[in-house]
């Protein structure tokens, strides 16, 4: 347990001191909130305040970026620097390493989500019920776990840090637009909606938004939950099958 705590604390420090990660994880999403707030601050979308609607989207966007880009890139970097191999040379059970890493990443995503919601509330007066936010954060944790696993899968498949970053971004950007995060799904052509509804970011925001904002879900919760579960399983399977301690030669 003590071993877990030291590894957890060390990884937390590493995450909180990484300048690029801080920019993408805090400055960027909060910047988006400030931008959206300035543009749509007082407006309503279909009877709900635009800011509350968009804030949930920014939280999910951050969870997605954190997995597809943050986790994927970090793992490939650690592999390229020989750090994974050095850690493997120590008698640390893999479960402890995986648990500490997962716990740190989930804590970070939660802190980021809280920061995003707080800025929206304090600066732009977005209103959420406490119980809604609490339930949404539980859902966010599960969703974040899915995206962490998908990030691990990308890292396992990518031959290098550059490739990992490129793959992550190639998945992230299209999914950002095909997801109902910021662009209401109703504005997409029907055939695109047919694709977008299977996107994990879409499923996550469709689960979280109804509990935080007074809007109905687009599709059944069980479908969203099942979909996210399947994405998580896919991530685990690829990550476990293709994980490497060392870069490919």
């Amino acid at each position: 347990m003590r071993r877990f705590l030291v590894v957890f604390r060390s990884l937390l420090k590493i995450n909180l001191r990484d300048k690029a990660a801080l920019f993408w994880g805090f400055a960027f999403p909060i910047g988006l909130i400030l931008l959206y707030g300035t543009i749509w601050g007082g407006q309503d979308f279909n009877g709900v305040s635009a800011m509350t609607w968009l804030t949930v989207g920014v939280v999910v966007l951050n969870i997605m970026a954190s997995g597809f880009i943050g986790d994927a890139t970090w793992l490939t970097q650690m592999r390229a620097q020989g750090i994974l191999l050095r850690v493997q040379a120590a008698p640390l059970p893999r479960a402890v390493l995986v648990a500490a890493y997962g716990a740190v990443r989930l804590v970070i995503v939660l802190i980021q989500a809280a920061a995003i919601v707080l800025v929206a509330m304090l600066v732009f007066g977005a209103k959420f019920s406490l119980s809604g936010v609490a339930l949404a954060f539980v859902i966010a944790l599960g969703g974040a776990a899915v995206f962490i696993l998908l990030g691990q899968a990308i890292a396992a498949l990518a031959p290098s840090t550059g490739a990992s970053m490129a793959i992550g971004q190639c998945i992230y950007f299209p999914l950002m637009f095909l997801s109902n995060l910021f662009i209401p799904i109703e504005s997409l052509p029907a055939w695109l909606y047919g694709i977008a509804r299977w996107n994990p970011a879409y499923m996550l925001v469709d689960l979280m938004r109804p509990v935080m904002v007074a809007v109905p879900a687009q599709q059944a919760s069980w479908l969203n939950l099942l979909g996210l579960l399947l994405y998580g399983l896919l991530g685990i399977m690829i990550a476990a099958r293709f994980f490497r301690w060392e870069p490919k030669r």
Partner: protein
Amino acid sequence: MQADTIIEIQHLCVQYNNVQAVKQLDLTVRRGEVFGMLGPNGAGKSSTLSCIMGLRRPDGGTVRVDGHDVARDPLAVKRILGVQLQKSALFNELTAVELIELYAALYEVFPTRAQIMALLERFGLAQKAGARAPQLSGGQQQRLALAIALVNNPQVVLLDEPTTGLDPQARRGVWAMVRRMREEGRTVLLTTHYMDEAQELCDRIGIIDNGVLVALDTPLALIARHAPPLSPQDAARRQPNLEDVFLALTGRGLDGEQSLVQDDEARWLATTT
């Protein structure tokens, strides 16, 4: 296995897709010695170390460390080994103290702040306790990696090219550290492609080329047995050395790498040795 044997490698084979990196290697390292694996780049040194460290399953043969079969019981072996890999593997965001603390925890060792400082002091890094890896010179990073190799007070220390890329002063600093490890009764197995390093530092040397052990003995015995007589001009200038031995055994020279010039090594060395 003899009483004074601590590492026993039998018929070790390592195969990558189409490269046979290690071919039927037999080698024993004795308790308390500094053993050097000398060979050019690509000889199979790191591959052999990977098998001893339990980072790679041998494709043939066995490796035992202090009686434990590495393939069967890698955790038991990892616990008694101190390791330093070819890449120094330091997280950029952590300070020297935090790195020691983290790596120690991986071995279930939880040193106090004073113990961490004593370890850093010993490696000439007390002033750098709060510095992060990118702020350290190459020689300092290497010494930090050596300090980390001792966090679990290991019986056996495996060092993969501990001085490659260091300038001569920094190399001598590392040699002093290795000698001290031996004085403390640890066994050291290191790899190098510097013949002067092998000759200066090692009690016994295994010369490896192309995945094969071509000779094994003390430096002096190797020179006495394998070095061809020097030409009269050469004999007037120098003694026969391991470079001559390697040339005689393989028909090729040991290619040295350019060393990098580092900063404060000389000053540090002056204060410790």
